[in-house]
């Protein structure tokens, strides 16, 4: 791996090295002309079976996986939708329901054409009849402008329809996006049938995160080997992360997968305090202890946890991890779609127990661990699984703090700051 870390930092005016996805020095998204100047146009002949097969192979060989959180192999997803009955639909998912994440809206604002290129490529690969871009409200204007430019230039076989995403945590889930577009209710459907077989309007639907589509657009131009020139063998490529918490310059950065975590933190100007732990992935991600994690490769294999939505939140040593976990849990419980027992009843009960732990209230917590096991895999969607994972990792990583709390002591300093991250305050 010879390439430098890829950096994008527009706000502080420090030296910026352009990444694959994120350009430098732009306040607003580039014009279509700028985009073509930087990346060149997509190859011709995209309607041909031969091009489609070659590109599908390239995406498979590149090892591209979804950047929406589940990291599902994109090639397999495309194959599944391609073999579904009827005319396919492509949905570019820029909902970004994860409140700590900013990468999707930054990408849509800074490189909308790359995302739309990816959607267009996907539409060609699947011979889709419809393409919808569901975008975060912050990025709507940028995407509208880009779509208008593309319409005028006539570059897309299927015109792209833009829809503003719903503002809800679970709204970014694949079937929730379909429900939002189709019915105006941004809540997940039950797990069968799969979107790849029966999605929007009952047709095979590809719901793909906007960052994944951007990578796809580049693979279509430069091929699998180029994509694999960065990253590790098991986890190739670059990825967008949102760094926040106790770092000097919180923001969205593009990083090469597999670089050491401390290098990633250094991109954001380094830690502002001694770090206690990192929350990887998002609100429903996994806590890892900072001491060991900083030396590990920034990858799922390296850290032993999924990278999720690419959030890296740095918890300083003088903030109580249990209190932060309690706030996260309460928020996540409030974001339930209200459709299934484990979420409606299990999450608030779990939040109550974590609150009690955080407040140092006496009590037995034998139920907590059992409930965390029991809700896993039993929700109408993956929401309870994420909460369970996050709380279980907190109980491991903050075990010392938890013991202290049980005897009424908290290690955090007197003026314990609550992490400066966007947790909407929820009254339980």
């Amino acid at each position, binding site marked *: 791996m010879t390439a430098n870390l890829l950096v994008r930092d527009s706000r502080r005016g420090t030296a910026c090295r352009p990444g694959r996805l994120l350009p430098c020095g732009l306040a607003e998204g580039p014009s279509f002309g700028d985009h073509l100047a930087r990346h060149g146009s997509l190859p011709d002949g995209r309607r041909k079976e031969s091009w489609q097969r070659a590109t599908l192979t390239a995406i498979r060989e590149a090892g591209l996986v979804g950047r929406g959180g589940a990291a599902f192999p994109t090639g397999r997803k495309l194959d599944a939708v391609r073999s579904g009955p009827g005319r396919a639909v492509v949905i570019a998912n820029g909902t970004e329901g994860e409140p700590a994440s900013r990468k999707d809206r930054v990408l849509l604002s800074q490189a909308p054409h790359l995302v739309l290129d990816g959607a267009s490529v996907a539409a060609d690969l699947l011979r889709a009849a419809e393409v919808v871009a569901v975008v975060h409200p912050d990025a709507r204007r940028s995407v509208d402008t880009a779509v208008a430019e593309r319409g005028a230039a006539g570059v897309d076989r299927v015109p792209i329809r833009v829809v503003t995403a719903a503002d809800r945590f679970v709204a970014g889930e694949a079937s929730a996006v379909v429900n939002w577009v189709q019915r105006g209710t941004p809540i997940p459907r039950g797990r069968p049938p799969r979107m790849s077989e029966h999605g929007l309007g009952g047709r095979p639907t590809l719901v793909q995160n906007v960052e994944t589509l951007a990578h796809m657009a580049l693979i279509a131009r430069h091929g699998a080997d180029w994509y694999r020139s960065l990253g590790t063998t098991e986890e190739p490529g670059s990825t967008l992360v949102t760094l926040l918490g106790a770092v000097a310059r919180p923001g969205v950065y593009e990083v090469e997968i597999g670089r050491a975590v401390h290098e990633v933190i250094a991109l954001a100007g380094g830690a502002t305090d001694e770090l206690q732990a990192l929350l990887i992935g998002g609100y429903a991600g996994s806590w890892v202890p900072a001491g060991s994690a900083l030396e590990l490769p920034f990858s799922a294999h390296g850290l032993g946890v999924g990278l999720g939505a690419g959030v890296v939140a740095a918890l300083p040593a003088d903030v109580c991890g249990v209190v932060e976990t309690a706030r996260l849990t309460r928020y996540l419980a409030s974001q339930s779609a209200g459709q299934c027992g484990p979420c*409606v*009843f299990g999450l*608030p*009960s779990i939040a109550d127990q974590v609150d009690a732990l955080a407040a140092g209230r006496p009590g037995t917590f034998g*139920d907590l661990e059992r409930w965390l096991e029991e809700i896993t895999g039993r929700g109408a969607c993956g929401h309870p699984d994420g909460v369970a994972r996050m709380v279980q990792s907190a109980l491991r990583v903050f075990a010392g703090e938890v013991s202290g709390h049980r005897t009424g002591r908290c290690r955090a300093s007197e003026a314990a700051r609550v992490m400066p991250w966007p947790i909407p305050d929820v009254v339980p």
Partner: protein
Amino acid sequence: MSAVVIASTGTPWMWLVSRGSGLALLVCLSAVFVLGVATRQGSAPRAWARFVVAELHRTLALFAVAFLALHVATAILDPYVSIGWWASVLPFASHYRAAAIGMGALAVDLGGAILVTSLVRKHIGYRLWRAVHWTAYLALPVAFVHALTAGSDMGVWWVAATVWGSAVAVAVALLARVLGRIRGPDHRVRAGASRGVDREPMRSAS
């Protein structure tokens, strides 16, 4: 007993059986209704499981079909009064006391739809099944009106007592159902509750 006219060609037993089976049918349907509400509310007496309540609701409904067949067949076949076969399903097709019999026919129509949809429940989906099942709230009162207007034995004290007793049972069940709705979703958080089969009545959240 009111005077029984012995027709020149027939026997009075068919008319008697029709009235008797009609009364039994009313009691049976009232029990089905009460058990149906109990199934919906998740209530079960101490010794019974909820699935027993549900199964009993279904079994008694099938008994009711048997009583109905007897009630209708004997009423039609009886030569004393002129009620054609069509009058059992077409309201107001009867020559004899059209309105009163017509109510019975209406109840048969609604009940028949409920029966058929319940038999093929797995194939038609929950929503459609439930929509038709709801017409039970109409069908049973209609059956009661039929009993009161077409029935000829309300003068007998124990017949009247049975009919009114059944009506009271139905009204109580109905009240319980309505109150169950008004109370809203029930939060059944019982931290540390015993796992496994639970015998306490539990309200559904919907």
